[in-house]
């Protein structure tokens, strides 16, 4: 029942989305609002139908309807309800269905906002058309090559259950949706880029729309990547959080170009410069999401996440080529309108900092893209099977990363247009002093790893510079309004949310950078064969004692658990239970590490092997200093976006430029 229903909903949605896209484009081109209005209704209907399709899949999963192809592939009566629900996105077809659901939701939001403001109506209508066109592609995929609703006969009594790695941690329920909301959301700024180009509305309205519509998915993508890193740390059992795996790279590359975009769009908005560049960045971001999906979903690159399957690959590749071609044609056609109105006034200016920021982000993207694609190219050109080692990525990206950390401090401290060299140098004095002091302290404390040292010192310097952007304006306000420090800080920060949201995000980046540098450079591990009841094994400040090795039978799996008492400086910190899980359909055990999260460092235990009689267990311990800073940094970035986009209280009657007006004034007063 749910199979045919899902199929029907998909096909009707496909037809409606196609009609809607045609209506939106024709309505916009011939200026017929009635057609655009029907396109809006088509977007709402598409969403309703995709929800029906998604729910019928969930229903089939929950009721263990093994006549449905996807359920026969990932369902199992033994799987707990929670994992059954989230198994909707644990394999290829289901993940494309989730993609379509999120895309249809974004489309409905765009449709809902279309026609609200007369000055952007035309752009919005074209953007709606572009969104609906994306829907067509994904609905075609679901109806055709990636159809999850097909019927299986004879109907099996039970299925294999989801991939064991994907049902080993509850976080699988959170991390893929977050990532998808970010990833799929990049189609919205792309649609508005197309909408702007087609309508010729390439002024401030366009920049503002693009910026806002990028920040939301960008924040989700940031959270999704952070959550993915945390998931990989908690689940995969090697103690790391990032392996330059093609799928990780696939999510990271659009993040890099979107981050470049979030910065360059400010130059575009304020100075009417860099338009072609900015629009290219947003198109590149969208193309990279499709490329990433192609790489990881077509099976051309082997990876933990790769679900290989026939026609899906060529489909994505065709879509990629089509979007690339149309975008290039559109940019070439509209190049007149993209010419810069402003120009660079001075080298010592925030514009320059943004230019270098963009250069570095694009170089970063290129490094990752080349490393990800190289095995594919080598195989195609020379027939050689080759992998690009992690050291390539680290050697290349660490220097770029440190330069970006430096700019994260320098950029905010530089004024727009023309810098006063003297004022700028004075700003540098005390952060440089503090950074130098920290540098010496780190050396005294025995930090000898050059890049880790440099990252921390640079981050402290940048952090000091950004503090100045809080304390400077707040101090001025405190004197002029006779307010207390907290009150002045609050008024300054709420007075220009956009600016301070950005600085909070910068702090998130600095915190994460310190976490990445220190945990990567100073992670250390040991491995021992522990005897039950034997003497505790010393490891630095820690000692580990094996209490017992025992087995447990759970509904969907069997587990072998080592109970280990972990002491730090002689005090019991936790009774840790690293385990190996055996799933019926998997040939090898899946390790679940046990992590003791500390403020300064984590202790991470993995059960490697054990004696069958339970007398001994081989346990690996990994100590990662400051690894937790990475997750907190990611959360801070998202908080910065929330702060920046928080709606203003409407005190003054709203005019078209109300949002930018006070912000500009404040930025002006901060400059003086």
């Amino acid at each position, binding site marked *: 029942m749910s199979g045919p229903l899902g199929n029907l909903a998909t096909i009707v949605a496909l037809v409606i989305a196609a009609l809607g896209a045609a209506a939106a484009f024709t309505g916009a081109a011939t200026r017929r609002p009635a057609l655009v209005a029907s396109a809006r209704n088509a977007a709402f209907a598409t969403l309703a139908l995709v929800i029906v399709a998604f729910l019928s899949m969930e229903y089939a999963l929950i009721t263990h309807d093994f006549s449905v192809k996807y359920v026969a592939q990932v369902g199992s009566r033994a799987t707990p309800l929670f994992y059954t629900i989230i198994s909707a996105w644990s394999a290829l077809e289901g993940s494309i269905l989730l993609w379509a659901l999120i895309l249809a939701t974004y489309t409905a939001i765009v449709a809902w906002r279309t026609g609200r403001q007369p000055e952007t109506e035309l752009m919005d209508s074209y953007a709606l058309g572009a969104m609906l066109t994306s829907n067509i592609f994904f609905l075609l995929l679901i109806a055709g090559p990636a159809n999850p609703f097909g019927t299986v006969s004879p109907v099996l009594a039970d299925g294999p259950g989801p991939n064991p790695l994907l049902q080993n941690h509850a976080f699988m329920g959170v991390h893929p949706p977050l990532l998808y909301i970010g990833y799929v959301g990049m189609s919205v700024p792309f649609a508005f880029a197309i909408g702007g180009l087609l309508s010729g509305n390439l002024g401030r309205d366009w920049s503002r729309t693009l910026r806002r519509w990028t920040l939301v998915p960008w924040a989700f993508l940031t959270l999704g990547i952070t959550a993915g890193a945390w998931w990989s740390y908690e689940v995969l059992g090697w103690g790391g959080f990032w392996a330059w795996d093609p799928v990780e790279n696939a999510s990271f590359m659009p993040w890099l170009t979107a981050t470049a975009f979030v910065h360059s769009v400010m130059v575009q908005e304020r100075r009417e410069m860099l338009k072609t560049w900015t629009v290219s960045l947003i198109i590149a971001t969208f193309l990279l999401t499709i490329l990433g999906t192609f790489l990881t979903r077509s099976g051309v690159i082997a990876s933990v996440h790769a679900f290989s399957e026939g026609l899906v690959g060529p489909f994505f590749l065709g879509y990629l080529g089509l979007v690339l071609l149309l975008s290039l044609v559109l940019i070439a056609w509209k190049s007149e309108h993209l010419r810069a109105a402003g120009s660079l006034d001075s080298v010592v200016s925030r514009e320059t900092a943004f230019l270098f920021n963009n250069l570095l982000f694009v170089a970063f993207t290129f490094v990752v893209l080349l490393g990800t694609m190289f095995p594919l190219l080598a195989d195609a050109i020379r027939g*050689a099977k*080759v992998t690009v080692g992690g050291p390539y990525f680290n050697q290349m990206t660490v220097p770029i990363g440190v330069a970006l950390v430096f700019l994260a401090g320098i950029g905010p401290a530089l004024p727009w247009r023309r810098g006063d060299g003297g004022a700028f140098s004075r700003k540098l004095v005390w952060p440089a002093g503090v950074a130098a002091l920290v540098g010496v302290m780190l050396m005294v404390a025995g930090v000898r790893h050059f890049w880790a040292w440099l990252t921390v010192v640079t981050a402290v310097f940048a952090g000091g510079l950004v503090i100045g952007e809080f304390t400077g304006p707040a101090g001025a306000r405190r004197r002029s309004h006779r307010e207390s420090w907290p009150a002045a800080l609050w008024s300054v920060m709420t007075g220009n949310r956009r600016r301070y949201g950005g600085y909070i995000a910068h702090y998130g980046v600095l915190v994460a950078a310190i976490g990445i540098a220190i945990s990567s450079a100073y992670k250390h591990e040991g*491995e021992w*064969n522990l005897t039950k009841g034997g003497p505790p094994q010393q490891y630095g400040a820690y000692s580990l004692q094996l209490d017992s090795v*025992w087995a447990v*039978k759970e509904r969907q799996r069997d587990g072998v658990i080592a109970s280990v008492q972990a002491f730090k400086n002689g005090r019991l910190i936790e009774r840790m239970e690293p385990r190996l899980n055996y799933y019926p359909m*998997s040939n090898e055990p899946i390790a679940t590490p046990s992590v003791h999260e500390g403020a300064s460092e984590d202790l991470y235990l993995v059960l*490697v092997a054990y004696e069958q009689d*339970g007398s001994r267990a081989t346990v690996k311990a990994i100590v990662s200093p400051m690894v937790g800073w990475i997750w907190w940094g990611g959360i801070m970035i998202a908080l910065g976006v929330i702060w920046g986009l928080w709606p203003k209280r409407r005190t003054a009657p709203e005019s078209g430029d109300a949002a930018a007006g006070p912000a500009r004034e404040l930025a002006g007063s901060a400059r003086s």
Partner: protein
Amino acid sequence: MAKGLKGKSAGLLLGAAVVLVALGYLIWGGIGSNLVYFYTPTELLAKGAAAYDKSARVGGMVEAGTVVWNADARELRFGITDGDTTVSVVSVGTPPQMFNEGQGVVVEGVYTPEHLFRSNKLMIKHSNEYRAPDPGKHPAEYYRELFKKSAS
């Protein structure tokens, strides 16, 4: 004014060009020295002396009767074979629970002139697709005794 601006843009362009050239150089060198080729034992030996002291991955089966585990040194020696050729491998660290004779494995490391492959990474070869456990090698064999003990 216009002239000064041109000078500034030129300086900026020069800076950008320097950054790009430096990056290009770094990338070129970086990717070349970090490639890890994948060989079968036959392919590795066919390369002769050219294979020495370079990072490589070798995939094959653990040859029966070759596994020697030195628990004190935590050193594992075994032969990896593709049916025709066998390469001797030495690896440090406890092998994964599934390591066994006849198991498909991939080792990453360096082939030395002493005709020994020094592995720093030992991976069990598995496909991403589901595969039912091989007959006679059901994973439950590994922990059946533990269940008996835990139950009692």
